[in-house]
């Protein structure tokens, strides 16, 4: 596949996907999710209104995982082909994943404060997600430190693959301890959603946040591609002026 055909400033700023379809879909879906979560879904019996944060918490986690999939794809193909376009895809994925991972930790803390009466508990799911967040944080830092350095892409790609390897650990960490020993709920697998409106709320908010993440990813990708081409043209102008 000729990835450069798609990842260039001309395609990214003019394609109907990035300028019309994804933003419009993200906006409509997020609006729909807000309406469903706050107006359609009934109050949960035990927790009350606070339970509604669950939809954004899980949705952000799904968006984060989706972005890490892009990070993994971008990193692996970059190592295989050394095309800068793949590197830009991975970088944008990691940045957006970091944003959504932060949202997950934040909403999770708010939820935990009202459900467990504590902002933080040391249990497998929380700890493994914190590790994921720390890894994304160090990826972002590495990018900032090494912008413009030689081989920066390869280093970041190696770290990106290591981060992606961590995701299954996070997902399965919840199986590590029995339900009696940990508090983080496993709602879907436990068939905790007894009302169809809960399921509707969950599905729509998941899709909405993934669409929003995709749009942010597109914007970040466009930004870094333009930045790269400006740097390149600056170099070219410099060498022309010298010769």
């Amino acid at each position, binding site marked *: 596949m000729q990835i450069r055909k798609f990842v260039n400033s001309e395609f990214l700023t003019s394609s109907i996907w990035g300028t019309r379809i994804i933003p419009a879909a993200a906006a409509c879906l997020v609006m729909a999710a807000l309406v469903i979560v706050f107006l359609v879904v009934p109050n949960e019996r035990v927790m009350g209104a606070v339970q509604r944060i669950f939809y954004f918490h899980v949705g952000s986690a799904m968006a984060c995982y989706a972005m890490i999939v892009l990070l993994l794809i971008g990193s692996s193909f970059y190592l295989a082909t050394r095309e800068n376009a793949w590197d830009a895809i991975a970088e944008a994925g990691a940045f957006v994943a970091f944003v959504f991972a932060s949202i997950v930790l934040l909403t999770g803390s708010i939820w935990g404060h009202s459900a467990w009466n504590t902002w933080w508990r040391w249990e497998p799911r929380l700890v493994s997600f914190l*590790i994921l967040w720390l*890894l994304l944080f*160090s990826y972002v830092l590495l990018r900032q430190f090494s912008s413009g350095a030689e081989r920066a892409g*390869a280093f970041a790609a190696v*770290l990106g693959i290591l981060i992606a390897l961590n995701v299954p650990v996070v997902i399965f960490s919840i199986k590590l301890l029995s339900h009696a020993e940990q508090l983080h709920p496993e709602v879907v697998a436990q068939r905790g959603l007894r009302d169809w409106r809960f399921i509707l709320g969950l599905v729509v908010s998941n899709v909405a946040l993934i669409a929003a993440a995709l749009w942010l990813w597109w914007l970040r990708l466009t930004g870094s591609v333009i930045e790269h081409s400006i740097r390149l043209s600056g170099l070219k102008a410099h060498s022309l002026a010298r010769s």
Partner: protein
Amino acid sequence: MSAEGRIFSALVAKDLKTIWRRPTQIAATIGFAVLSVIVASFAFRQIGYTQADLLAVTPGIIWLVFLFTGVVALNYSFLPEYEDRALEGVLRASGSPATVYLAKWTTNYLFIAVVLLAVLGAHGLFFGADLSASLALMITIALITAIGFVALGTLLAAVAVVHRERELILPLVLFPLLIPLLAGAVFVTRELLSHGSIDLSGFWFVLICVFDIVSLAVSTVLFEHVAAS
């Protein structure tokens, strides 16, 4: 001996000679380890910990000190190559990047093993930790844990060395990845110090072994992409 084997042993011999010719580096690293143990001992005694309390935190302190000392030691592992631009030469002269990586891993491992022994010794001296009853097992666990630590550390030291902020980048990238290994090591050490034996089929010991194998395999594969320019 095969060609790869000859290259491997030549590289290991070269690295060991480099370390041997800079004895101050070994001395300083071990000094750092011992000093950290002493500082930790002071910190805990100062808040009123008795000898028994100190023993309860020993497993955590051992691995914390080891983590910090190890990261300081690993920071230097690729510095000579980087400063002299020798890594490209070594890669071009030798067969596969995997051989270069494994050779580097071997010397780093030997160096880290010495550091580990110093950490354990310092604990016996300054922390009053009685390791004598299960010393052989303790050293074995330490050496098994070090496999994974050095595997990821060597890979990421090669990543970090080209940056000006390498002392910051290596721990920032390495520590989050090492958390499962650290948790396992602390748990197994606690088990050993309190019971005198460990459960070889227990979750944490198996985790350490799996972590070692996966990190060594993944790092050997990925090193090629880090090193090849």
